[in-house]
Structures are given as C-alpha cells and as structure tokens.
C-alpha cells in the first residue's frame, strides 16, 4: 500500500476545471516531484491533498485512510504538513511564534521545545532571528521559516510548493540540501517545482502536470532524459 494515493481527482474553482482526473502515488520515504508550467494545477493538487480544496470526484488516501473527509485543520493531525506557495509566514508574528503555530497540533510542550531546537539546528539563521517579526525576514529566511514551521508538526508527509521560488541560487542549493536532509530523517516529500532540473536531481520519482492532467510519471532519472521533458522543462533543445 502506498503512503499517499491520489486517484482520479477532479477539482474545480467555480466553473474552472483545474484538475482533470489526477492519479499519483507516493511511497513511504520517497521524494516525489511534481513539475509543470504556470497554471498547470500544481498548487491546486497540493491544496486538494491538504484539504483546503475539496475535489468534486476521486479519492485521496493516506496509508489507506480516506483523507477527503477531513477538513484542512484535521489533515495536519493525520501527519500531512504543507509549506505553502509564497511561504505564507505570519508576517506580524515573531519567528518563535510562527514555529509555535506550526506545532499547534502538538499537545506535548516538551516535544515542542525539542522540535524547535531541531529546526534551529537545521536553520541556525532562524535562531539568530527568533524574536524578529517574520515579515521583516528576507525571502530566503522566510522560506526557512515556512519549512521549519511545517516540520514542527512532525509530519509523515511534507508537501512543498515551489520552495525555490524567488531565491538566489545559493539559497536554492541550501534549501534543496535541507529537503534531502529532512527526507533522510524519514519524512516523505511531495515537492512541487518549476525548477525542474533541481527537483529532478534530488527526487526519486516525478510527475509532469499539464493543464490539470498528469502527462508523464516516471523515475527522476528517466524524466531527466526524456526529450519532451528536456525540451519543455529543462530548457534543453
């Protein structure tokens, strides 16, 4: 049984048919990437898995349990956390408070302190800035904070929406290193990226999404060598 199973999922915004029967699965311990151009439906896919959007049709299961029946705030308790597109840090709250919000679903305060230490260990920069309002952080620091915040819930599955967006190349490297590190610690990851080259270099498998449909799904290496992927997403003619 796969950890996450998405079967024939259709999601609408009003009349706009954003997801047209998506199928994908993620195994325990994998990094799976979802690549696709602007408006392909990547964010919609993540928001549907996390419960913020409800599909009109289809199934989503986590370790065999139906996820769709839970509202977004209960999906976290099932072990799914999300780093939203554009980071979505709480700008008028401090770094520490943002991390505390990440741990909202945890009732054990001892664990909270340990998890915060773990985040500060991954991102020493956040520790220096712990008392600062999140809105005053740089883009890279905000991405670290959004990632750390999601980890505070001790997720089994981490959904990441374009973590490299708008970051300088050095920071992109750093964030991707951290993603691998988190994965090595046992967290399964679904990584949405436009930076397909980077994403495919760390992912085990990948899917290509095009206007609401999965058009390809394969091992990362295979996708990297696929001529259509190379042409459309890797900028290789």
């Amino acid at each position, binding site marked *: 049984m796969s950890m996450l199973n998405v079967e024939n999922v259709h999601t609408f915004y009003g009349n706009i048919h954003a997801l047209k029967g998506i199928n994908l699965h993620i195994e325990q311990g994998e990094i799976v990437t979802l690549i696709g151009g602007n408006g392909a439906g990547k964010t919609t896919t993540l928001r549907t898995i*996390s*419960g*913020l959007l409800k599909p009109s049709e289809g199934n989503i299961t986590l370790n065999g349990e139906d996820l769709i029946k839970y*509202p*977004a*705030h*209960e999906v*976290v*308790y099932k072990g799914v*956390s*999300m780093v*939203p597109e554009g980071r*979505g840090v*709480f*700008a*008028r*709250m401090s770094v520490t*408070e943002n991390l*505390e*919000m*990440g741990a*909202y*679903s945890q009732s054990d305060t001892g664990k909270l302190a340990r998890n915060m230490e773990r985040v500060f260990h991954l991102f020493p920069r956040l520790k220096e800035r712990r008392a600062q309002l999140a809105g005053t952080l740089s883009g890279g620091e905000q991405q670290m904070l959004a990632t750390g*915040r999601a980890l505070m*819930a001790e997720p089994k599955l981490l959904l990441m929406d374009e973590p490299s967006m708008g970051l300088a190349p050095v920071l992109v490297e750093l964030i991707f290193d951290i993603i691998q590190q988190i994965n090595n610690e046992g967290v399964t990851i679904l990584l949405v990226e436009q930076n397909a080259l980077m994403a495919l270099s760390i992912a085990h498998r990948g899917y290509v999404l095009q206007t609401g449909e999965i058009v390809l799904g394969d091992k990362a290496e295979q996708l990297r060598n696929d001529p259509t992927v190379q042409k459309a997403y890797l900028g290789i003619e």
Partner: protein
Amino acid sequence: MRTNLSERLLDLAVSVFMWGFRVLIVAVILIGTISTIQAGKYTSEQWIDFVVQGISQGSLYAMIALGYTMVYGILRMINFAHGDIFMTGAFGAYFLATWLNNTGFIDSNPLLGLLIPILFAMLVAAGIAMLVERIAYRPLRNAPRLVPLISAIGASFFLEYAFRGFFGPGVYAYPPINALDGEWQIFGIGIQKVQVVVAVSAAIMMAILYSIVMFTKVGKAMRAVSENKDTAALMGINVNSIIVSTFAIGAAMAGAAGVLNSLLFRQINFMIGFVPGIKAFTAAVLGGIGNIPGAMVGGLVLGIFESIGPSLFLEGLGIPRPYQLKDAIAYTMLVMILLFRPSGILGERLSTKKA
C-alpha cells in the same frame, strides 16, 4: 491633454479645500482654547475633573472598541451589532444585580456584588454574540463584503427591538452600590470612587485581554487567523472555532463595559448600546481598525477629547451650550480621521489591507 489639465485642476482644488479644512479645524481649536483660558472660567480642579471623566468614559469606549477591532482583524467586517451586545450585557447584569440587591448581598459584599454581575454580563453578551455570529454572519462568510454589513445592521435592530419587546421601552435603574458613593483623595485631588473603579476595572480587563491575545495559544491562533485563514488551517487551527472565540471575547469585554457603564450612568434601556457603539467604532477607527492597542488608545483619546473639548475649545468661541456638542466632537474626529489619516493613530493604511 485637456482632460489631464482639468484633472490636475480638480486635484489642486480638492487639496486646497482639504488644507483649508485642516487649517479651519486647527484655528477653531486654537482660538477657542486661548479665549477659554483667558476667560479663566474653570478652575484647575474642574479641568482635572473633565479629564478624569474623560478617562473613565474613554476606557469604556476602549473596551467596546476592542470587539470591533478584533472582529475586523479576523473577518474584515464591521460588526454593527456590537453596541447592542454591550446593551444585552447591561440588561443581564441589571436583573442579576437587582436580585442580589434585594437579598442585601450587594450591601454586605460590595466587591462580589460588583464582580458577579460583571461575570454574568460577560457570559450573556458572549452567548448572544456567538448566536449572532452563527446565524447572521457565518452563512455569509464568502458573500461580498457589503452583505454581512447589512446583516449586521439587521442583527443590531433585531437585538434592540427584541429587548424592547421583552422589557419595554422604559428605563431601568441599575441598583446603587453604596460602597462606591463619595470620593477618594488621590494626590490631594478628590475623585469620585465610581470613576476610579470603572477606569481601574477597565484597565485590568484590557490587560487580561491583551495578555490572552499575545501569550496564549488561542490568542496566537487568533492572530494567525487574522493574517491568513488558509495558512492557519494548515497549522491545524480550527478557523471557525477561533472566529467564534474572537466574537465571544470581544463581546465579553463589551458586556463588562455594559456593567461599568451602568455604574456610571445608572440607566438601562434597549437603546443604550447605540451611541456608545458608534463612539467605540469611532475609537477603533481612530486607533487604527484591526489594531488592539490602537483601540485602547483611541478609546481614551476620544473620551478625553469629548470630555474637555466642549469647555476647552467650544465655549471660548461663544457657543451657548457647548456641552451639547460633545457628540459632534466625536463625529468630527471620525470624519477627520477618515479624511486625513485613514490608518488611524497606530494602524496601517486601510486601503492596503487585504480584503
């Protein structure tokens, strides 16, 4: 090119007018103040009295303003029924306090005789506010912004006339707490006990509220929800229950203010929430709507201006009954804030707030 020129002329005319308006207001205040002070009609004790009155009245505005500002912060909506929530708290406390008074409890136990009705008023107000939220606002959560506003005005009328229906249009007198009669000497100045008690109670309640918002899990969740509901939900925060808590806490403050108001003015009827509601809304805008310390500061500033304004800058202008223009001061301040500093004293600009 021509439209450009006429547009520019229009802009110029508007800004000349606005500057004229500012200069006029400043001139009125300055001239009035100078001539009042020269006339020397009031002693310094009287001025202190005005300020003390302003502080106790203003701290009530502040308590009510918190509810407007918190609900606005979380839903970007003006809860126009909030003033009537204040009224329901006062009514609830009135019935309990009357009963306690008849049993002699208030005389033998003045502190509890004050606290128990306050707690009861907070519960009544919170309960009614939660019902209003559930029935009149929640179903309209995703409607255009004007729709819940209209629903709020409807809820306001509903509460007023439901209370009128149950309790009639008459005026009820809140039972006196004899222990609060008379004055205390503070720094050699005689100040009415009731005003001190009102201001101190208000300060304590606001300190509690502020600590809740800043330091508790619920308070932090409120701030998270007010920034972004979807992201808050991703944290595991039940957004609906946080919204309900926000209404309940804001209403509890208004209910408590209803009791303190009854101590000051004694009179209770179904319309007592109307004017304080608008004043408190003014205070919230003055402080920067959505901003909690702003609501507190705005309430105090409004209360003090209203209290000293008529004597300080209106009387000196030779206006015969300046005290009757007290409300005009509040509304002039509202208009001026909206025109010249829509962000309020401590707030961010309204127009840049996310809708």
